[in-house]
């Protein structure tokens, strides 16, 4: 009986087909957390496959090492198969469903959302121009900003929480312990699943040769993003807790976090885009390449416009730059549950559920 080469019915079925071959081979065990987790499985239920899919960081080591990659009739391309399952999960679990798919697939839709964000902010500035205020509060008052961004930040996180809760149940995540969070944070913070298992990195932009470029770019993006987020959080605390509103000088916590964070985010996302252009799209979820690229570009734009706004302090360019920057931030926030940004939440959850990992 020859090997059944009819295409699998779903992304999950295709991943299961490939994982069963992987589980009989196990040569790739040392690359990342996916393979040790695979060998511990007793049944390949859809939830277990979803868990493995989000553990995979698309480092591609297993693809280039695989003796069964196409044109072998087993046609293993596990990075792509797991990327498809992840993508399917992000879309299927997204809430509410009507906006679940568009922004993943279309860079154009992302750009349209960005333009809509600009328009909203220009309109807000035109309509709500304050009578007085310092720094950019002279353009848009603090209260107006809070009125726009508090819901634009909280509502997407609520949507993500609703999705993630359903997904966590599907993968059998169980009760979360503090140890799960710290272990996941350590793995994510160091990009452990992007280091090839021994620090040699990914097989991403150089084919079968290893490189740490993607890991470093991703870590710059992650830490840059977290520093910018921390800058905003600290500023909020200073505003309400210390009655110390913006503008802040350079030697203050918001700027000391935000400026290096913005630079890191800018460099990281710029590098990620350059690397993505050189990598083989067939080893990822090829149908969402445009949406992924659009998302990274948006994040780049958020950081670059933020830095430009800072550089323009005190000039006539501030109102326009403020509208552009805040418009990009608004689009970014609102798209969190429906764009590649959501991968961070699923990955972190997958790392938390991988309780036997180091």
């Amino acid at each position, binding site marked *: *009986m020859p090997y059944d080469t009819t295409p699998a019915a779903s992304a999950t079925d295709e991943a299961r087909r490939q994982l069963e*071959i992987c589980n009989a081979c196990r040569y790739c065990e*040392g*690359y990342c957390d996916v393979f*040790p987790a695979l060998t511990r499985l007793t049944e390949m239920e859809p939830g277990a496959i979803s868990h493995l899919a989000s553990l995979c960081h698309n480092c591609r080591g*297993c693809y280039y090492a695989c003796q069964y990659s196409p044109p072998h009739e*087993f046609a293993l391309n596990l990075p792509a198969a797991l990327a498809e399952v992840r993508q399917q999960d992000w879309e299927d679990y997204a809430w509410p469903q009507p906006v679940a798919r568009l922004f993943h697939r279309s860079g154009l839709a992302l750009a349209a959302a960005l333009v809509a964000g600009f328009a909203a902010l220009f309109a807000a500035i035109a309509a709500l121009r304050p009578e007085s205020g310092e720094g950019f509060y002279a353009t848009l008052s603090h209260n107006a900003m809070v009125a726009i961004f508090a819901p634009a930040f909280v509502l997407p996180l609520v949507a993500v929480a609703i999705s993630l809760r359903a997904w966590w149940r599907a993968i059998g995540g169980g009760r979360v312990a503090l140890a799960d969070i710290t272990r996941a944070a350590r793995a994510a913070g160091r990009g452990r699943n992007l280091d090839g298992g021994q620090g040699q990195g990914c097989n991403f932009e150089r084919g079968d040769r290893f490189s740490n470029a993607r890991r470093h770019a991703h870590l710059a993006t992650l830490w840059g993003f977290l520093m910018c987020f921390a800058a905003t959080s600290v500023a909020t605390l200073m505003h309400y807790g210390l009655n110390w509103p913006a503008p802040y000088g350079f030697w203050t916590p918001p700027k000391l976090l935000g400026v290096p964070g913005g630079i890191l985010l800018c460099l990281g996302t710029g590098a990620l885009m350059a690397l993505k252009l050189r990598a083989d799209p067939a080893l990822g979820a090829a149908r969402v390449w445009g949406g992924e690229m659009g998302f990274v570009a948006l994040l780049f734009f958020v950081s670059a416009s933020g830095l430009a706004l800072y550089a323009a302090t005190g000039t006539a360019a501030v109102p326009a730059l403020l509208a552009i920057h805040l418009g990009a931030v608004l689009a970014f926030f609102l798209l969190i549950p429906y764009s590649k940004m959501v991968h961070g939440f699923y990955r972190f959850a997958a790392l938390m559920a991988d309780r036997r990992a180091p």
Partner: protein
Amino acid sequence: MTDGNAPWDVAIVGGGNAALCAAIEAAEAGARVILLEAAPEHMRGGNSRHTRNFRCMHHGPLSVLTDTYAEDEYYDDLLRVTGGKTDPELARLAIRESEAALPWMERHGVRFQPSLSGTLSLGRTNAFFLGGGKALVNAYYATATDLGVTIRYNAKVAHVHVESGAFRWLELESGERITARAVVLASGGFQADIDWLARAWGPAARNFLIRGTPWNRGEVLRDMLDQGAESVGDPTQCHAVAIDGRAPKFDGGIVTRLDCVPFSVVVNRDGARFHDEGEDVWPKRYAIWGRLVAAQPDQVAFAVIDAKARGLFMPTVFPPESADTLEELAGKLGLDPAQLAATVDAYNAACRPGAFHPTELDGLATEGLEPPKTNWARPIDTPPFHGYTLRPGVTFTYLGLRVSARAQVQSGHGPLSNVWAAGEIMAGSILGQGYLAGFGMTIGTVFGRIAGQEAAAHAL
């Protein structure tokens, strides 16, 4: 540099582990090297792309290896599997040099990982490649490329021109001629040439599956033997194991192995048992079943287990046929239902109570059954029943070229002055029979390195 007609210092025939080790050594010695791989780029690496570890002598922990694995123990292990069919001088050389070879491999891009789950018994003796043999092959191609080795794919060598005891040039299948001062032959055995296999073994070999590359067709080996090179190894024999009968004709590799035999009843096409399924532990058992199945009608057999045995052995690449009754299972496997049921009934009736220990020889044997099952003999009585088809899967052939301890190819009139050989094409000197896990890579690495050094020294 890429001119195929330029006089090269060293030409390497083949593109697997031994060829790459030779190319790297020769290039590091300063030679201009061309490597001729018959396969296209995506299939490069011969059987090395399916390997997973390197058997290595060591004193104290070395890289991922634990404890100590000394020369004499290693040599005894070799004697056990070969039944003494080995060249002691070459064998001990391969063993001794393996200790220095491992750090050399690491310096040239190979990465090792701790023993894979399910293979803990090898953690002391065998260093596993991170990602397997194809990752090793990739690393070596990258290293060779960086050293300036010219690599040609789809470059099948049709003839090695030897004149008055010396190699002159290579003729590619395309008609192109490659001239070099020295040549290293590292193009593997002949197991992928089914016609040759059938002439050597008998017509039954047409039903064998080839576990590795379809590119090891032995053209260069044949050509050298025709020109008077001395041979080693039994020309009629190949190493075969019992693999999943649904595996591809070529290139199924590691995943097609079946580890279920000790927990099963194995019957042939006629539904009859033919050998003690509980005879021995891995890896010896693994090796004998290829031969046993090859001797059955149509070279096929069927391993039947019940629900109790699921999960006792490594997962299989293909799911088994499953049914709630033995008769139904027989139908799915293409066996006579009444005959299979009768065979299993007779076996079940011969089983005796006792403790079952899947990981050791438990002595749980049948009584009054011929042939007996001497270990792990539990009744097959708990549905659902599962069945796997077994066929012989050929790993490699034993026939090869005789070489000296410096890997130089020998003819009836003494050594050929500028011809060296490494890897499967000369492994029959050392592995005359049987197989020792990870030893093929040891032979390829050690003799590949020697051949590369010698060829470069001759050319420069």
